[in-house]
């Protein structure tokens, strides 16, 4: 318990929180807590991630992941360097075929999830990508989303929520996806206004009325982007004063005087970013993602309070969510297909060089990045995902059978130095499950290995079965 107490203290807990946290954790083994943390902040554990976390301890590992800029990620950067669209401006991107830029965007998301050492950053990017969802299948969003991914989501994923929100509001991808670029004085388009409140900030029960939807829409009239006739200056946010409704508005009880121009929209963003219901709504969603669907309301309240106190600093909100006293209350999370596939690659030591095969697999499973049609982002509920088992089993089996283009399995290295089924099952338990593989499932995989422990195909298939096992579907 000593290591845990010091870890907890280092994670910034006040002394009087400590006793409660320890009792809440009951008999949870400190190393089990660390494994749990690693599972929550990554796209899946493997032997090296666990070893690195063990050397840093709970607080040290958490602190490392909360400061992604300090993590050397050069090897991941080298892998995505050939994806030229990632660094280009809109006009350069726009002159490429849509399919090519979208594929590069998805390829980058996959490679980063697998290889980046900034794992928590990638989980946060995944979260905000859902929160501010944009479907690349909506016309120009194919080109706009690359810029949005870089300058809105990735740039602010661990920054201030208000900055993230404002960047999103000015993002051509969002302006296009939710039709705001066509919203004009006298006859506004309500699409962005409604989703801004319902999905991005205060939530559907956040206290806005139909009048507010109309008034907020008026505030954002004239928020557009430069057209493609602007050449190299195309696809950049611009405020078109001529199409802005400049008369007075009233939003959530606050008077917005006439003549505000672009400040009308900025004021609305500030009102929403500072609204206590935004703190609660976003905190609840983050808690659900990182701690479990049934997260206690008391935890949500504590996290929301931290959100307010830290002025929406996402890093501090995450530090609070991932603190040991909250991690102790975490319940199992069902891996969505992207998470499952990435975690299977990471845990089994497969190498992924190109992503055509992986993208096809994600499409079959219904979880291809940036392809959810609705503004609410891919669902995050076990009841939605748990019915579709075959793609989960098939991905692991095909990957280990060397049948997914771009992915190279390497069971030989995984089992290097081992000869018995028992030893190999033990390594699977350690590297893929952090020693938490249920005994019955471990026995069953061992029995499969025992068919012929020296056979390369049996070994590979056993890894596939382990990745398809019930316990591996959760984190």
């Amino acid at each position: 318990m000593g290591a845990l107490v010091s870890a907890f203290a280092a994670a910034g807990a006040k002394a009087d929180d400590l006793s409660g946290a320890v009792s809440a954790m009951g008999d949870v083994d400190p190393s089990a807590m660390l494994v749990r943390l690693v599972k929550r902040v990554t796209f899946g554990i493997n032997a090296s991630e666990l070893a690195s976390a063990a050397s840093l301890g709970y607080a040290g590992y958490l602190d490392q992941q909360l400061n992604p800029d300090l993590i050397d990620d050069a090897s991941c950067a080298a892998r995505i360097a050939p994806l030229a669209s990632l660094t280009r401006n809109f006009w350069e991107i726009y002159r490429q075929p849509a399919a090519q830029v979208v594929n590069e965007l998805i390829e980058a998301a996959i490679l980063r999830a697998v290889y980046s050492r900034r794992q928590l950053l990638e989980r946060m990017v995944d979260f905000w990508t859902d929160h501010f969802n944009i479907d690349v299948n909506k016309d120009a969003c194919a080109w706009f989303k690359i810029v949005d991914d870089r300058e809105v989501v990735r740039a602010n994923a661990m920054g201030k929520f208000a900055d993230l929100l404002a960047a999103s509001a000015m993002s051509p991808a969002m302006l296009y996806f939710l039709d705001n670029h066509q919203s004009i004085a006298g006859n506004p388009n309500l699409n962005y206004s409604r989703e801004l409140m319902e999905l991005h900030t205060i939530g559907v029960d956040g206290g806005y009325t139909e009048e507010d939807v109309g008034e907020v829409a008026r505030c954002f009239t004239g928020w557009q982007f430069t057209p493609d006739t602007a050449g190299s200056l195309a696809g950049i946010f611009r405020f078109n004063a001529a199409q802005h409704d400049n008369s007075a508005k009233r939003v959530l009880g606050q008077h917005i005087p006439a003549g505000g121009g672009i400040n009308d929209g900025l004021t609305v963003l500030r009102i929403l970013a500072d609204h206590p219901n935004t703190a609660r709504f976003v905190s609840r969603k983050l808690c659900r993602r990182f701690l479990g669907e049934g997260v206690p309301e008391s935890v949500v309240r504590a996290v929301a309070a931290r959100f307010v106190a830290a002025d929406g600093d996402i890093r501090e909100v995450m530090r609070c969510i991932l603190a040991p006293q909250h991690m102790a209350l975490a319940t199992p999370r069902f891996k969505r297909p992207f998470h499952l596939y990435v975690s299977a690659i990471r845990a089994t030591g497969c190498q992924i060089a190109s992503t055509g095969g992986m993208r096809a697999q994600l499409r079959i499973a219904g979880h291809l990045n940036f392809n959810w049609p609705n503004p609410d982002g891919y669902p995050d509920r076990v009841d939605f995902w748990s019915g579709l088992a075959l793609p989960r089993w098939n991905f692991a089996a095909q990957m280990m059978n060397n049948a997914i283009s771009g992915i190279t399995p390497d069971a030989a290295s995984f089992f290097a130095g081992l000869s018995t089924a028992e030893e190999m099952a033990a390594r699977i338990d350690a590297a893929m499950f952090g020693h938490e593989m249920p005994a019955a499932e471990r026995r069953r995989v061992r029995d499969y290995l025992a068919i012929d422990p020296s056979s390369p195909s049996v070994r590979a298939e056993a890894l596939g079965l382990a990745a398809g096992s019930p316990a591996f579907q959760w984190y």
Partner: protein
Amino acid sequence: MEPTPARCCPEYAELSRRGFLQAGAGSLAGLAAMASWLPRVAVARDYRSTLRDTIVWIYLRGAADGLSMCVPWGDDNYYLARPSLAIARPDSGAAARCIDLDGFFGLSPAMAALHPAYLAGDLLFVHACGSPDPSRSHFDAQRFMEVGQVSGDTSLTGWLGRHLASVAPADPLAMLRAVGISTGLQRVLEGGPATLPIPDLAAFGLLGNPATKTARTNALRDMYATVPDPLRATASTTLATVGLLDQIGFSTYQPGGGAQYNAAESLGYALKTSAALIKAQIGVEAIAIDVHGWDTHSAQGPVSGTMAMLMNRLSAALAAFHQDMGSGSNPGYIVAVVSEFGRRVFENGSLGTDHGHGNAMMLMGPAVAGGRVLRNWRGLAQEDLYDYADLQVTIDYRDVLAEIIEHRLGNSNIASIFPGYQPVNRGVLA
């Protein structure tokens, strides 16, 4: 569970007459493979006598504009509210004008393919219909409708899932009672026993090294047998269903009645494979299908743009299904086409429409009292609109569903399916 020859053989003879089932069945291997599911088919003959329909629940996600589908051309206010988006009267000279249905409503020209089903009395529109819940949030409104509640407790399972859970299976040996044509289970089916999301009925198999398929299947079966639900139920239904769907031969399925599905389009493909599934009579009682893309805030294009394309696909797929299922002696079906709410009566400044309230719902099937537009129309004058902007909801969608559940799905347990709601009989069935 061995079939007796007396039960099995006539049924097998009947099955063999269906062209699409013959693939692979001519050989001994085919016979052996089919034998595993013949007993269930034999039982299917019994459940057909219960006259239960398979319900096909099609959800138009994003709030489809019912006023562009079933057009109130007899209401002048429609034309005043939509100077750019209105569809011309049937008696106008416009090239694209609606097809008169009853002297007041007209069918969108983009949905002309459905006119024969309407004339045959198999297609019913229920207008100014929907949920009385005032929400204009897609996600809340969809959830409420799928759960079968007006706001309130949405932690409930789906209404269709509750129906399935509260009625004996039509086929007592059915391994698969409901399918969501989706990668994730639609909420409407949550809580349903033997229910799976299956995105592609024709591609439902265990992959990997074929030589070890049995060994790997056994390992998966063992590992999942003792874990808690939902994964235990998912795995057992999945493993039971894999072999079953393999037998249906979707790829060689020949639709009846000369029906032409556009299988390159997702709804056409979903309905084609659904027809094969229903005809195979393996005990499937409900199929849920989603169609996305109806949130037309800008450039709605009901005549030649986005929405016209969506309506074209929808009506072509439904018309093919109607033709296919209507030819010869097929199991009963009923299609319900719904959307979370309608769109604002007045067009906005970007040639689109924003979120509204009341909407049109469609029912199709031999049991439907079709060839009509059922409504309690209050008009489109602004003072008659909901919030001065939207079509009223004058018929609760649950009235329509309750009648179907009781008379076509064999379940009178309406109180547990729609708790706290007393449905009104609207006479949607013949």
